[in-house]
C-alpha cells in the first residue's frame, strides 16, 4: 500500500480512492471512532485505579474479582449453554428450511417466505414482550426446574429469532449447488438419503458452519429478548452486565467485558479460518 508514491503513481490511478488523503483520513477517523471506545475499555480493565480514568499501573486484580464473582460465572455459563443449544437446533431448523425452499415448489411458498422474514424484521422489543406474555400467560415455563432445563424459555426464544438467519445463509450456499452431481449420483443408483448425506451435506458445510457461527453470536449477543424471558435464577451474561452497568462504570465490568470481547473475537477468527479453508476446499472440488 505504502509503495513509493512518486514511482507508482504516474499518472495516479483514477479510481485509487483509498490512496487519496481525504478518503484515507476519513477512513482512519471512522476506525478510531469504532475502536477507541472498545480499546480504552479493554486497556482500563488492567488499570490499578477505581476511578478508571488515569493510568495508575498494571493489575490483574479486577480479573481475579470477576472470576471470583459466582453470579457472573453462573450467568456466563448460562449464556454459553443457551448459545450452544440454540445453535444446534437453529442449524437443524435453518437447514431444513433452506432445503425446503430450495428444492420444492408448493402453494404457500410466498406466505412461508414472508413468515420466515418476520423474525428478522420484527423489532426486538416486540418479540421480547411477545415472548414474555407467551411464557407467563400461555405456556408457563416452570422456573424451579433443574439446570439447564430452567433455561428452556430463553433457549426457545433464541431459536425463534436465529433460525431464519441461518436459513438465509444456508440457502445462499445451496444456490451454488451443481445439480448434475445429484443426477449423476441418481444414475449411479444412490437413493434420496444417500444423496443427502454424501452430496448435499458436504456441499452445505460452509453454509452450516457460517450459520452456526451466526446463531451462536446472535444468541450470545442478545440482550433485549433475553431481558424479557429471564428470571431471577436464569440471568445471562448480558443481562447480568446490564444490571451492573446501569448506574456506574467500574473496572470489574471492564474486565468481564474484555473477557467476552476476546472470546467473540477468537471465535470469529477460528470460524473465519475454518470457513475459509472449507470454502477453498469446496471450490477446488476436494470436499466432494
Amino acid at each position: 500500500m505504502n509503495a513509493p508514491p512518486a514511482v507508482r503513481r504516474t499518472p495516479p490511478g483514477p479510481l485509487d480512492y483509498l490512496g487519496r488523503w481525504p478518503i484515507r483520513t476519513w477512513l482512519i477517523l471512522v476506525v478510531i471512532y469504532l475502536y477507541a471506545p472498545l480499546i480504552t475499555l479493554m486497556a482500563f480493565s488492567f488499570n490499578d485505579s477505581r476511578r478508571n480514568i488515569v493510568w495508575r499501573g498494571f493489575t490483574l486484580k479486577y480479573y481475579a474479582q470477576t472470576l471470583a464473582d459466582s453470579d457472573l460465572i453462573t450467568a456466563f455459563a448460562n449464556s454459553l449453554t443457551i448459545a450452544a443449544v440454540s445453535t444446534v437446533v437453529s442449524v437443524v431448523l435453518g437447514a431444513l428450511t433452506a432445503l425446503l425452499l430450495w428444492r420444492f415448489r408448493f402453494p404457500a411458498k410466498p406466505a412461508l417466505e414472508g413468515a420466515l422474514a418476520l423474525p428478522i424484521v420484527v423489532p426486538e422489543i416486540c418479540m421480547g414482550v411477545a415472548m414474555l406474555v407467551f411464557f407467563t400467560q400461555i405456556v408457563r415455563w416452570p422456573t424451579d426446574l433443574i439446570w439447564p432445563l430452567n433455561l428452556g424459555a430463553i433457549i426457545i426464544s433464541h431459536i425463534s429469532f436465529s433460525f431464519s438467519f441461518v436459513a438465509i445463509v444456508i440457502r445462499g450456499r445451496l444456490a451454488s449447488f451443481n445439480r448434475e452431481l445429484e443426477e449423476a449420483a441418481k444414475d449411479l443408483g444412490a437413493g434420496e438419503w444417500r444423496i443427502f448425506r454424501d452430496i448435499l451435506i458436504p456441499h452445505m458445510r460452509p453454509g452450516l458452519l457460517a450459520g452456526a457461527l451466526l446463531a451462536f453470536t446472535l444468541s450470545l449477543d442478545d440482550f433485549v429478548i433475553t431481558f424479557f424471558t429471564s428470571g431471577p435464577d436464569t440471568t445471562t451474561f448480558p443481562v447480568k452486565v446490564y444490571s451492573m452497568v446501569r448506574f456506574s462504570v467500574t473496572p470489574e465490568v471492564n474486565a468481564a467485558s474484555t473477557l467476552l470481547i476476546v472470546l467473540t473475537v477468537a471465535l470469529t477468527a477460528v470460524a473465519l479460518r475454518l470457513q475459509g479453508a472449507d470454502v477453498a476446499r469446496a471450490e477446488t472440488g476436494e470436499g466432494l
Partner: protein
Amino acid sequence: MDESWKRARAVFATFAGPPVLWLAAFFLVPLAIIWAYSFGDNASLTRIAISGTLANYIHAIQPLYLGIIAKSLWFAGLTTALCLVIGFPVAIAITFASEKSKAWLLLLIMLPFWTNLLIRTYALMAVLRTEGYINFGLGFFWTGLGHLTALFGHPLPAFQPLELLHNNFAVVFGLVYVQLPFMVLPLYAALDRLDRSLLEASLDLGAGHLTTFARVVVPLAVPGIVSGILVTLIPSIGAYLTPDLLGGPSSQMIANVIERQFKTANDWPFGAALSFLLMYMTFVAIAVQAIVARGRKARGR
C-alpha cells in the same frame, strides 16, 4: 430446482414440518397474543379481557405518546442520515482497495459488529460520562490553556465538564456507533458490483471526482443506499438499549415506553398496542423499500 411437493411428499413433510411448526408455535402465536391483547383491557390485576376495544390505540395517539413516536422517528432518521454520510466514503475506500486490503478493511468494519451490543454501549458510557475520557482530555487541555493565559494575566475559570451523557446527543451518537457497520456493508455490496468503466469514462470525459460521484456513483448505488437505509432505520426506530443507557429522562424512545408498560406500569394492553404500532411502522418502511425497488426494476434498471 423447482420440484413439485407432490412428487416427494414424505421428504417434503420432513423438511417442512419442524420449521413450520416451530415458527407457528414459538413465534406467530406469541405475536398473535400480543395483537389480541392490544384490543383488550385490564379486567383485574392479573387478567386481561379481550373486549375488542380501541382504547389502547386511542391512548397511544395522545400528544405525549405521539411525541415519543415522533422523537423515535427523528432519532432514527438522523442516525440513518449520519450513517449514510459517514459510511459512504468508507464504502468507497473499501470498494477500490486492493483485494488484500479489502478483506482486512471489511474485517475491521465488521469486528465491532461481532462484539456484544451491551458492551459497545457500555464502552460509550465510559467515554462520554462527565468523568469520562473526552471530558478528561478536554479538562487537561483547558487547564494547560489556563496556565498559558495566566501568564498574560487572564486566568481561565475552572473547567466545567460537558454534559455528554444522558441526553439526546448521546443517544444519536450511540445509535450511529452501533449501526454504522450495517450501513457500510450494503453500500459496499452495491459499489462493488458497479461497472468501473463507467466511472473511468466519466473521469476521462472531464468530470471531476465530485461530479462523477454525484452523477454516476450515487445513481448506480441506489439499491445499496436504499437497503442500507432500511437496515439502519428499522433497528434504530425500535432501539431499546441505547436510549436506556445513554439517554436522559427526555430522550426515551418508543421501545423504552413499551418496556415500562410490561415491566413496571403493568399496562399490558397499552404496551401491546404500542408494540404493534412500532411493528406497523417497520412494515411501512419495508413496503416503501419494496415499492422503490420495483419502480426501478420497471424502469429497466
